[in-house]
């Protein structure tokens, strides 16, 4: 509750700050203060179990340690995001404060997605998350790529919203007690009614769209590629994992008991996602676009949570959220400093900026899932969840085979940085400040600490 309300309020605050404060750098600090405040408030709620605000929500939202931990992870990652990339907002356009405001609104949507208990709140949450993103995607107004991305994102997003609503309608129609509460669908143990089945598929399609799972991922590469990099970083991480959290929450609470009846669909989606994400990423020359595909690939792994749908899966998802977001934000923050977004642009980075190269390596290793990084722990939990599920065991093997392919494209960057010489004596990066380096190191350390000691997050799940 704290996070939802405070992030909404802080968004409005940011919005007004644009009117009163003309400084370009000030919004970043206000936003940082805000995110820390919200994080603290959320932490207090997590720790004490009580929100600052007592509102009768009619059970439309449910806060528990699980949700709050997830929100904490999302907020924490956003804090890192602000710290690492906050300074880059102004490169996109003049409305820095507005961008921050939009991001706070997105965070409000993220929090809603993490706590919703009715389909209505899910819908509103998703929309609150999406609409600001359409804007952020198109915020680089003069850039045709940004325009194109925004248009594609918007049209396809609206389309998927339509699908989702149709699904909700059918669920509503199929539920005997006419309710939108996700835990009140009252399914028997037998075969589910046709209307529910239709609604379920449509919901699955739209949620898959939001988390960019194949074959509903088509917007992802284009939008991530076209959007201003600094916002790609945000939307490919925090927003996406929030989508996943919502996805898992929705399907676990509403259809968890009859999982066997729809697991095949998830298997199909998971494999398609893994295949398309990993295989297509191999050929990409632009790091940004490669990361877009990699985010699809990672989504494939996160789909395992949906496949498994047990405690381990949820733990894994939270861990995955943290690991994946931190690493991707880290890589993007470095990418933002690069002058050339192609892989060749990274050639010989280790010579000039050993620290940048080292931290990038840590991030990429984490994304690959090498032990001692958070990425390994999260993948490990996912695999464990999937094995624990007991059905379709082979999907796990396919997943790891694709994970091996993922090493291929992540390591291309590492190879470029360490083992190749820069083409000529060009300026590779924009100015890299000491504080940025320190923050990078902290982020990398965070990843390693989580890799060694995932209890840091998992411990809160059952608080």
């Amino acid at each position, binding site marked *: 509750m704290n996070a*939802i309300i405070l992030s*909404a309020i802080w*968004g*409005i605050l940011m*919005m007004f700050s644009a009117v009163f404060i003309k400084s370009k750098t000030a919004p970043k600090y206000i936003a940082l203060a805000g995110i820390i405040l919200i994080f603290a408030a959320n932490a207090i709620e997590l720790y004490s179990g009580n929100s600052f605000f007592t*509102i009768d*929500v*009619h059970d*439309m*939202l449910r806060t528990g340690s699980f949700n709050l931990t997830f929100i904490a992870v999302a907020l924490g990652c956003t804090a890192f995001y602000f710290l690492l990339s906050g300074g880059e907002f102004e490169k996109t*356009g*003049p*409305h820095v404060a*507005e*961008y921050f*405001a*939009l991001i706070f*609104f997105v965070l*409000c*949507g993220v929090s*809603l997605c993490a706590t919703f208990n009715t389909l*209505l*709140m899910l819908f*509103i949450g998703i*929309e*609150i998350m999406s*609409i*600001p993103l*359409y*804007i952020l995607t*198109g*915020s680089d*107004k003069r850039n045709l790529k940004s325009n194109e991305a*925004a248009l594609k994102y918007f049209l396809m997003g609206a389309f998927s919203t339509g699908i989702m609503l149709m699904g909700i309608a059918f669920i509503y129609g199929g539920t005997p007690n006419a309710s939108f509460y996700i835990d009140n669908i009252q399914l028997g143990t037998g075969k589910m*009614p*046709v*209307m529910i*089945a*239709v609604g379920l598929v449509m919901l699955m399609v739209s949620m898959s769209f939001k988390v960019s799972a194949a074959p509903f991922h088509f917007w992802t590469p284009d939008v991530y590629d076209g959007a201003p990099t600094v916002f790609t970083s945000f939307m490919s991480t925090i927003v996406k994992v929030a989508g996943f959290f919502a996805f898992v929450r929705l399907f676990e609470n509403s259809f968890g008991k009859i999982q066997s009846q729809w697991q095949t669909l998830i298997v199909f989606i998971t494999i398609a996602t893994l295949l398309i994400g990993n295989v297509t990423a191999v050929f990409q020359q632009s790091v940004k676009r490669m990361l877009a595909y990699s985010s699809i690939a990672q989504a494939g792994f996160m789909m395992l949570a949906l496949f498994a749908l047990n405690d381990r899966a949820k733990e894994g998802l939270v861990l995955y959220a943290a690991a994946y977001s931190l690493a991707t934000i880290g890589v993007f923050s470095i990418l933002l400093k690069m002058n050339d977004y192609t892989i060749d642009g990274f050639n010989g980075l280790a010579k000039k900026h050993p620290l940048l190269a080292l931290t990038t390596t840590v991030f990429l290793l984490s994304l690959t899932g090498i032990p001692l990084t958070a990425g390994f722990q999260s993948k490990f939990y996912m695999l464990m969840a999937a094995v624990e599920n007991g059905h379709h065991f082979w999907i796990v093997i396919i997943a790891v085979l694709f994970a091996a392919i993922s090493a291929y494209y992540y390591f291309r960057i590492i190879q470029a940085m360490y083992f190749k010489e820069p083409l000529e004596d060009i300026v590779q990066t924009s100015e890299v400040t000491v504080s940025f380096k320190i923050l990078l190191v902290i982020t990398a350390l965070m990843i390693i600490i989580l890799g060694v000691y995932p209890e840091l997050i998992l411990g809160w799940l059952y608080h």
Partner: protein
Amino acid sequence: MNITTLSFILLSIMAIGSAVMMIRSKSPVHSILWLIIVFFAISGHYVLLNAQFLAIVNIIVYAGAIMVLFLFVVMLMNLNAETEPVKNYRLQLIGVISGGALLLILLSALMKMNSQQMVQMKIGDPGLISNLGKVLFTNYILPFELSSILFLSAMIGAVVIGKKD
């Protein structure tokens, strides 16, 4: 066949026919006008279902505000001409076929339902303004408030994107 059924059929034909015309017409302005007719037909359905509030809102918000906005934009851009000179008929055919297949699959599955569930027509109070208002401002106060965020962000969006710098 009573009057209810008859109006249902008429309204349905109107809605579907206009919808088809909307996607078929070359001129965006005509499309918009066809769509407005669809909305009116749907509003008629609402009336038939005794959802008075939604019938009114639909006309005010959709047919009135939203579609006028569309019309306004189209006029502003002066798009009232042939805008899609190159037509890829094959792609269109595939589109129609796959859309049709979707419809077919869904209907064939849904029509197999054996339960005969009737819809309450013309009577019933869930759709009355007083009831809805009460529910909206008691049970649904939170989403109602939250939707303001949606509008705020839409507003910022309009500013950020639309404003000339």
